[in-house]
């Protein structure tokens, strides 16, 4: 690591400000104390009683000292974060403060999630303090440790993330990328399966998942600060094609990891459907800047077309066509509707267009609900859509290759990964094409675009048409995978969720739409215990995203300036600590 140099453009460490400035001389001590407290917290008991049945406790009880080497689950994460903080505090590395702060937030998240959970499950505050002569202060000690870490890290000033200029030979870089993507794959699998399948039988899953998320988030924040992630990102940018291939292979390899069960394959395939649809919506909203509030209707049209051409008994059409042909027909039909819905864009702009699309979406749902023309099955839906078949093999069956036995749902997962990859490819090429640039020009200023010789009318309709085709494509897959097509899957709320996925991820970017769709469809799956509050939290999240991070998780370079408040620069780090450098800009970009 001695060859790594800080780029000359890097700003100096921001001087500590405010009340924390007094603590500046003690930063190293504070960081070490925080790390030690975290370790101590991890080894203390966490509950004054044995939590009721199930795997959650993982030592979150008084029984810990009877098996001293059983550090697992969230306590293991705490040990790792605590040790890492101490090491960083002692070893000379750049951007120390920022790294430790990331770890500290991770520790805080873990202690709050688990402490709260044990308090709620244990029936009160006594569960994490002392009752009946037993004491369990693990949660408090760890929380204090986390706070001390963050305070200690911030007091010394927050450097911008380190910028590594290291370049290695092609083969070495390829190997590093391969390892990095393998780690990403394992991490995705671990996040997906952490806490196990939610539901009544497994009441711990939500807490375990959130705690794991906190640990991963803290670790990633620390690694980002150390410059490692930026370095790898730039490396993958240099080897673009290689990265794309490896990423695709990694995605296809998910069934081989711990996520390779029927349940998780189903979840992953559903996420894929919404990711593909979100990318389609991203063309309309993110690139062309046309707000569409009824977009899910196109997914529905694709699904109903496929349902009617599948030979399902409930369909009045009763034709059975091969699946690839159905995919194309569904995309074309949805595309035609897209052009119709898009045609008012010739005369209507902005908010009014949003209302027109909302009206189309509502017309679609009402018509489908009333079984228009007998095509949608109404409230009975169209059940028993046969699964996709290829070479006489149903896609819902399990697969055995040699000694490898893959669960059912794998084939659908592979298919949707390929579909998403294809959709991403289409989107990526469109974005950089003449057409894509025309869309962006229209988004930025329609009158100026027209003055530059762009025929805005047809090009706007084309955005709707292509976006709708992608959704129709995904819809055909959706109908076969689900086995039913029901109007209930295509309501206004679904449109809002898709829109939220696009915005949360970052408008106009490919990874954004996929990331947004994953987050918005994984979270409800993982947090079944909070199912009652799901929509409430969703609504509040929309408000908070718009308030604090309107440009999304992966902001588009062009979009960035536009969705930020007009008067000030975009808030780059809403995750900064309360006392932290909220004015720190991401210098690496």
């Amino acid at each position, binding site marked *: 690591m001695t060859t790594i140099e800080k780029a000359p453009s890097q700003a100096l460490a921001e001087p500590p400000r405010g009340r924390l400035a007094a603590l500046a001389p003690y930063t190293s001590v504070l960081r070490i104390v925080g790390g030690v407290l975290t370790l101590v917290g991890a080894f203390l008991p966490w509950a004054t009683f044995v939590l009721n049945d199930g795997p959650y406790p993982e030592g979150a009880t008084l029984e810990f000292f009877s098996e001293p080497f059983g550090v697992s689950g969230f306590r293991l994460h705490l040990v790792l974060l605590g040790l890492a903080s101490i090491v960083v505090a002692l070893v000379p590395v750049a951007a120390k403060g920022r790294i430790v702060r990331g770890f500290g937030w991770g520790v805080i998240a873990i202690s709050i999630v688990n402490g709260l959970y044990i308090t709620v499950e244990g029936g009160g505050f006594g569960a994490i303090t002392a009752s009946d002569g037993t004491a369990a202060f693990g949660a408090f000690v760890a929380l204090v440790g986390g706070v001390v870490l963050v305070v200690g890290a911030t007091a010394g000033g927050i450097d911008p993330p380190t910028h590594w200029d290291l370049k290695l030979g092609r083969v070495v870089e390829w190997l590093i990328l391969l390892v990095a993507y393998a780690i990403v794959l394992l991490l995705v699998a671990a996040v997906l399966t952490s806490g196990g399948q939610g539901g009544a039988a497994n009441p711990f899953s939500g807490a375990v998942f959130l705690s794991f998320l906190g640990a991963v988030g803290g670790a990633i924040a620390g690694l980002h600060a150390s410059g490692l992630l930026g370095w790898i990102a730039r490396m993958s940018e240099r080897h673009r094609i290689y990265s794309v291939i490896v990423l695709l292979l990694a995605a296809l390899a998910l069934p081989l990891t711990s996520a390779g069960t029927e349940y998780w394959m189903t979840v992953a395939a559903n996420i894929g459907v919404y990711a593909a649809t979100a990318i389609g919506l991203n063309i309309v909203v993110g690139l062309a800047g046309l*707000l569409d509030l009824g977009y899910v209707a196109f997914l529905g049209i694709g699904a109903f077309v496929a349902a009617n051409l599948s030979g399902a008994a409930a369909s009045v059409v009763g034709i059975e066509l091969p699946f690839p042909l159905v995919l194309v027909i569904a995309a074309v039909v949805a595309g035609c509707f897209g052009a119709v819905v898009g045609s*008012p864009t010739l*005369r*209507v*702009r*902005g*908010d*009014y267009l*949003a*209302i*027109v699309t*909302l*009206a*189309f979406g*509502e*017309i679609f749902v*009402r*018509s489908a*609900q*009333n079984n228009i023309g007998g095509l949608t099955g109404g409230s009975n839906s169209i059940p028993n859509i046969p699964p996709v078949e290829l070479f006489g093999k149903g896609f819902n069956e399990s697969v055995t290759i040699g000694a490898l036995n893959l669960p059912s749902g794998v084939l659908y997962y592979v298919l949707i990964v390929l579909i998403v990859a294809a959709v991403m490819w289409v989107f990526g090429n469109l974005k950089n094409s003449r057409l894509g640039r025309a869309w962006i020009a229209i988004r930025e200023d329609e009158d100026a675009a027209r003055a530059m010789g762009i025929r805005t009318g047809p090009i706007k309709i084309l955005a709707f048409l292509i976006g709708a085709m992608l959704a129709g494509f995904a819809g055909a897959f959706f109908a076969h995978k689900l086995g039913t097509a029901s109007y209930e899957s295509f309501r*206004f*709320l679904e449109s*809002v969720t898709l*829109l*939220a996925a696009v*915005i949360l991820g970052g408008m106009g970017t490919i990874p954004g739409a996929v990331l947004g769709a994953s987050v918005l469809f994984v979270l409800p799956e993982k947090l079944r215990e909070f199912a*009652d*509050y799901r*929509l*409430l939290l*969703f*609504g*509040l*999240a*929309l*408000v908070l995203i*718009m*308030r604090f991070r*309107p440009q999304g998780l992966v902001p588009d370079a062009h979009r960035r300036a*536009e*969705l930020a*408040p*007009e*008067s000030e620069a975009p808030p780059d780090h809403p995750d900064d600590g309360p006392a932290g450098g909220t004015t720190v800009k991401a210098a690496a970009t």
Partner: protein
Amino acid sequence: MLSTLLSQIVNGLVLGSLIGLIALGYTMVYGIIQLINFAHGEVFMVGAYGALAMFTYLLPTFIQQQWYFALPLLLIAGAVVSVGVAVAMERFAYRPLRNAPKLAPLITSLGVSIALQEVIRVFYPGATAAIPFPNIFIPGTWTISVGDGVVPIKYSGILLVVVALVLAYALNMFVERSRMGRAMRATSQDRDVARLMGINPDRVIVLTFALGALLAGIGGVLYGGFYTNINIDIGFQNGIFAFTAAVLGGIGNIRGAVVGGLAIGLIKSLAGQYMPGGSAYDYVWIFVVLIVVLVFRPQGFFGETERVRA
């Protein structure tokens, strides 16, 4: 059947007055800050639940049984709850986004709408299903016989129409005659210049939200009284209708909102009776009308043609 036609017209007028009442809130907010406040429908719904909560949990039985005691109290409760919610949402959700691009507040309003609906569903006892609303006016029906049949008119429907028209008239007078109304009109024309003239735009905007919410809250109580039960979906549905009405009448225009509301009410009840598909498709016809109006006459019946929309 003449009596069927007349009954549907009566139904349409009652629903239309209600929609007009809600549409006033949409039209005023849009006129001032060019925001489609999707959460306005929820403000209406919250008003109905607020009044219901007071009736159920606070009022002693002897007041509950006398509508002339209960009605004013319920109206006040509904208005207070709605205004409180609207002012809070303006303060905490929309004001921080005042200079943000237009998409941000629009999506925020969707979020607020979902959140409000869910707050009621999760925390109001029994709100997962429709809840019966108390009788707030002279019970019963006034029937007029027409030729071969009768046209029933509920007294609570008459109340709704009268209150809606009176409130709309009062609002119109307020906006056109009062000092504060002039400040509102000035702010809607040019916020920066209004500020130079000594107007505090933030206060004007809060007042706009509050006035809209006042009408919506009263509308919510009257809705409950007329339709005899409420559920959490009434906000979104009627909100969309009301927005349609506001556009139909010319957004930003008070008289337009009322006329648009009556038109939407009539379209819904008449289309449900006479168009193919019947009442299952009455929503569809409203949206078809909305699209046609937006495409061919986006400024509505009474809107100014020259207004530039972004």
